């Protein structure tokens, strides 16, 4: 089951660069929320603040509060714990190149000390089914390496890998931008199904995609969140002129 995310007065810096300014928003549980905005507006940084991945950069700094469910992720937990509850899928599929499909999906579990064979088998199968990849790979699980799949399959593999650790939230940073239209539709259909079990936050600069999969959409500009509302409202009658200029392509 997914949980809601509450962000209060979030500010983020990379060195002296004030990348995010006073972000406040509530991401609803078991929904897909899309974040749109031009390049460099901070939406990727924002999403990385939700699972403390921005901290992997030594010059990064954050103030403010992020509550996932009832847990304050900066005060009450360590980054490693948070990342097990908040999964992430990246723009370019990045399966572990030396591992088989099976090992890729099980990686999150194995590397955290779970070795029960039967349990792993079950989880791998369930995750691959949840990411609509099971039928295509079930015969080659241990024989083929993760990197030998096609781009769309690799991305679904990465989704399965993220789901295997049973997160509550799934962050997707432009998951389909490197994929062809058919693979993109498969991923979008997947998001529809996953919504019922997880809370999904998806960064995209394909607005049609945001419109297709998300119930709520937030528009980021220059490190601020300009508007956050139902997707329907944002795309048919946004309140802020800057939002309208962006989505009609009249920007700049």
């Amino acid at each position, binding site marked *: 089951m997914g949980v809601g995310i509450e962000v209060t007065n979030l500010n983020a810096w990379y060195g002296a660069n004030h990348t995010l300014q006073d972000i406040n928003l509530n991401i609803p549980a078991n929904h897909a929320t899309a974040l749109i905005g031009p390049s460099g507006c901070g939406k990727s940084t924002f999403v990385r603040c939700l699972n403390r991945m921005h901290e992997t950069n030594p010059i990064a700094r954050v103030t403010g509060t992020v509550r996932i469910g009832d847990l304050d992720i900066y005060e009450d937990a360590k980054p490693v714990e948070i990342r097990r509850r908040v999964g992430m899928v990246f723009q370019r599929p990045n399966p572990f190149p030396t591992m088989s499909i099976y090992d890729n999906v099980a990686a999150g579990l194995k590397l955290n000390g779970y070795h029960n064979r039967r349990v792993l088998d079950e989880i791998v199968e369930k995750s691959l089914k949840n990411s609509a990849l099971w039928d295509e790979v079930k015969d080659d699980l241990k024989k083929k390496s993760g990197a030998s799949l096609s781009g769309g399959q690799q991305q679904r593999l990465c989704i399965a890998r993220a789901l295997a650790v049973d997160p509550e939230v799934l962050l997707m940073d432009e998951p389909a931008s490197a994929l062809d239209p058919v693979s993109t539709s498969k991923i979008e259909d997947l998001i529809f199904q996953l919504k019922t079990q997880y809370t999904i936050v998806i960064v995209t600069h394909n*607005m*049609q995609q945001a419109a297709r999969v998300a119930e709520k959409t937030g528009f980021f500009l220059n490190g601020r969140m300009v508007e956050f509302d139902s997707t329907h409202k944002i*795309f*048919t*009658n*946004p309140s802020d002129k800057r939002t*309208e200029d962006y*989505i*009609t*392509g*009249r*920007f*700049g």
Partner: protein
Amino acid sequence: MTRIRFQQSLDDLKENLLVMAGLAEQAIQRAIEAYRVRDLSICDLVSRSEIAINRLERDIDQAALDLLAMEQPMAIDLRFILAVIKINADLERVGDAAKSISDRVRNMDQMAVADLPVDIPRMASLATDMVRRCLQSFIEADPEMARTVLTMDDAVDAMNRAAYKALTKVMAEQGHIAPQALNALMICRSLERVADHATNIAEDVIFWVKGADVRHHKIAGGGRDPQAGR
């Protein structure tokens, strides 16, 4: 500013719609003039413009469809194109109403002039005023002007109801001029339709500019709620 070609296409679409609007408005005015002076040559003009109007309707619909498919318009652009498609249909119907009126005039040409208890010219002027206003509100993207059109519809409806009552009485009591009364009734109905189409166009303008759907917002008592969509 980006999407210059797209903006140009939107401007072209608006312009074509205005050409069509001009033709429709002219058709109505000619039809009413034909009624006033009983001149059949004007009826011919109306018939010819009907052909042009139908052709334009097809062209505008096609252009709008292309823009929807190719340009993925959002927000105000999307509302604009949707409004254009609907206004397009309403203008075509206005053209049809004009033709209908001119057909009645042709029909009445063989009949004797009768003195009927309806003020068709006044109803006609109200209707054409509504048409002119709604088109003006479209040209200027002025929702307030569009709103005034919504309030005028009630007057036209009232006149139509009164005409119906009066003319049915004439048909019952003065059978020898029943054909003229019937034709007059049909002309009144056409004018009422024109007023309705003008109202629709005004609602579409408000939808386009404000993103508010003001259709069918009738308050108790049958009047239209001018506060709707504010």
